[in-house]
C-alpha cells in the first residue's frame, strides 16, 4: 500500500508534466514536419505532412540565418562579460571588507536580476534615448559625442549585450561568492608561505577552487542567453535591419504570423543546439 502512496503524492506533477510539457514537446517536433498554420487549430489532423521541407527552408531563410549569427555573437560576448563582472564583484566582496557593507553591496548588485525584464528594458530604452536619455547627456558632460544607440546597426546589439550583462551578473556573483567562501583559508596561507603574490594566489588557488562553480555559471548562463528575446522585443523589435533579431524572437515572429509548422522546426533546431551545447560544456568542464 505504501509503495503506491508515493505515486499518489507525485501524481500532480506527473500529470501536469505529461499534459503540458512532454505532450507539447513531442507534438511540437511532429508539427515541424507538417505545414500547420494557425488556421489549422480547429482541425489539427487535416494538415499535410511535408517531411523536412521546413528544415530546408530554415537554411535558406536570410532572417533565420541572421538570427542564428546574432545569437552566437550574443552568447560569445555576453557570457565572458557577465562572468567577468560577477567574478570581479565576488572577489572584491570576499577580499576581507566588513560583513555589513559586503551584504549591502551584494544586495544592490543582485537587484536588477529579480526585476521584470520588460520593465528594465523599457527603462534602458529611455536611458539610451538619443535626445532625452541620460547616457548621451553624461557623455556630453565629459565632452564625448553620444550615439543613436538603438537605431544604429553598429551599436544596437552591443547596447543590448551590455544591458543584459548588467542585469545578469548579480546571480553569478552570488553563486561565485558562495564558491569563494568554500575555498579553505589554509590553501591561501600555504601559498603565501611559498611566496606566491596576489595574482599567483588568484591563478593557482582561487580559479581552480572555483572551477565547478564557474562551470555551473557557464552552463546555466549560456542556456539562458541562447534564448534571449524580451530585451530585443522591447528595445528594438529586432531592428534596425534585423541587426538585433535573435533566434527566439525570430521563432516568436513566425508563431505570431501563424506559421506553426515552420516555428516548430526552428524551435526543434534551437532546442537541439541548446542541449548539445550544455552537454559539450559539461564534458569539457569535467575533463580539464
Amino acid at each position, binding site marked *: 500500500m505504501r509503495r503506491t502512496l508515493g505515486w499518489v503524492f507525485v501524481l500532480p506533477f506527473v500529470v*501536469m508534466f505529461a499534459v503540458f510539457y512532454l505532450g507539447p514537446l513531442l507534438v511540437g517536433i511532429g508539427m515541424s514536419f507538417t505545414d500547420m498554420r494557425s488556421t489549422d487549430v480547429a482541425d489539427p489532423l487535416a494538415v499535410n505532412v511535408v517531411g523536412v521541407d521546413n528544415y530546408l527552408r530554415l537554411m535558406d531563410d536570410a532572417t533565420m540565418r541572421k538570427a542564428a549569427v546574432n545569437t552566437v555573437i550574443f552568447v560569445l560576448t555576453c557570457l565572458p562579460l557577465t562572468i567577468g563582472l560577477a567574478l570581479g564583484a565576488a572577489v572584491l*566582496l570576499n*577580499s576581507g571588507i566588513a560583513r555589513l557593507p559586503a551584504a549591502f*553591496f551584494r544586495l544592490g548588485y543582485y537587484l536588477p536580476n529579480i526585476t*521584470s525584464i520588460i520593465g*528594465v528594458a523599457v*527603462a534602458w530604452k*529611455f*536611458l539610451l534615448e538619443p535626445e532625452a536619455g541620460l547616457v548621451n547627456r553624461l557623455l556630453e558632460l565629459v565632452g564625448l559625442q553620444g550615439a543613436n544607440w538603438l537605431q544604429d546597426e553598429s551599436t544596437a546589439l552591443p547596447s543590448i549585450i551590455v544591458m543584459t550583462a548588467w542585469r545578469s551578473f548579480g546571480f553569478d556573483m552570488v553563486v561565485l561568492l*558562495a564558491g569563494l567562501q568554500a575555498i579553505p583559508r589554509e590553501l591561501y596561507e600555504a601559498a603565501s608561505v611559498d611566496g606566491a603574490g596576489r595574482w599567483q594566489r588568484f591563478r593557482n588557488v582561487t580559479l581552480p577552487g572555483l572551477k565547478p562553480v564557474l562551470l555551473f555559471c557557464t552552463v546555466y548562463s549560456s542556456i539562458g542567453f541562447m534564448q534571449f528575446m524580451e530585451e530585443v522585443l522591447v528595445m528594438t523589435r529586432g531592428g534596425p535591419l534585423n541587426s538585433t533579431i535573435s533566434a527566439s524572437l525570430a521563432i516568436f515572429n513566425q508563431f505570431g504570423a501563424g506559421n506553426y509548422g515552420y516555428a516548430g522546426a526552428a524551435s526543434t533546431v534551437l532546442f537541439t543546439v541548446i542541449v548539445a551545447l550544455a552537454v559539450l560544456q559539461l564534458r569539457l568542464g569535467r575533463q580539464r
Partner: protein
Amino acid sequence: MTRRQKAITYLGLSLGLLLVIGPFVWTALSSLKPESEIRRDPPTFWPETFTLDNFVELFERVNIGQSFVNSLIVALVLVASNVLLCSMVGYAFAKLPFRGKNLAFSLVMIQMAIPAIVLMTPQFVLIAKLGLVNTFAGIILPTLVGPLGVFMMRQFMQELPDELIHAARVDGAGEFRIFFRIILPLCGPPLATLGLITFLGAWNNFLWPAVVAQSEDMYTLPVALNILNGHEGTHYNLLVAGSVVVIAPILFIFIFLQRYFVQGIATTGIK
C-alpha cells in the same frame, strides 16, 4: 589588507553600485516629472516639479490598475498551488519509497531544461483546444507545479530525520496526516523561499501571458507595458511610469525579505 587597498576596494564597489542602481533611480525620478521636464535639455536630475500625472494618466488611459490586479491574481494563485503541490511532490521524492522514483525524478530535471520558446507553439495549440485562450486558467495551468520548487523542497525534506515519520506511523497516523501535521509545519523557511521565488517568477513572466492574454482586461503588467511600448508615438513619461509600476513592488518585497532569496539560490544553485 592595507588601508589603501581597502579604500580602493570600497571605491570600486561603490562605483559599481552607482552603475547598477543608477538606472533605477533615474527612472523613478523621471516618472515623477511632467513630460516637458523629461524632455528638457540639459536634463534635471532632481524633479523641479513633482507630479503624479504620469501615473494618473496610466491608470485612466491604459487601465493599468486592471493589469496590476490581474498580475496579482495570477501570482497569488501560483504561489498557493506551488507551495502546496511542490511540497507534496518533493516529500514523496525525499521520503516515500516507490517504484520508478528515479525515472519520475528525472522528469523534474527534464522539465527544467526545456526552453519556453520551444513549448510555446504546441502549448498554445493545446490551450486553444481546451478553450482556455484569454482566461486566467490558460495563463496559470502550465506553471501550477514548478520543477524548481519540487527540486528545492526535495533537497530540504531529505534533511528531516526519518524517525519523525516512523514514530508517527507507530502512533497510527495516516500518511496525509503525517504530511500535513508533522512535515509541513517544519518547512516554514523553505516554503517562504518557494513562495517568494514563485511570486517573482509569476510577476515577471512575460512570454506565456503575452501569448494567452489577448484582450486588455486580461493583460498582466509586463504584457500591458509591452503593448504600451509598441504603440507608435507613446510618450516616455507613460513608459517610465509603467516601468516603475512593474518594478517597484518587487523591489519592496526584495528589500524586506532578501534573506529568503539568498537562501533560495543557495539551495537550488549550489547543492
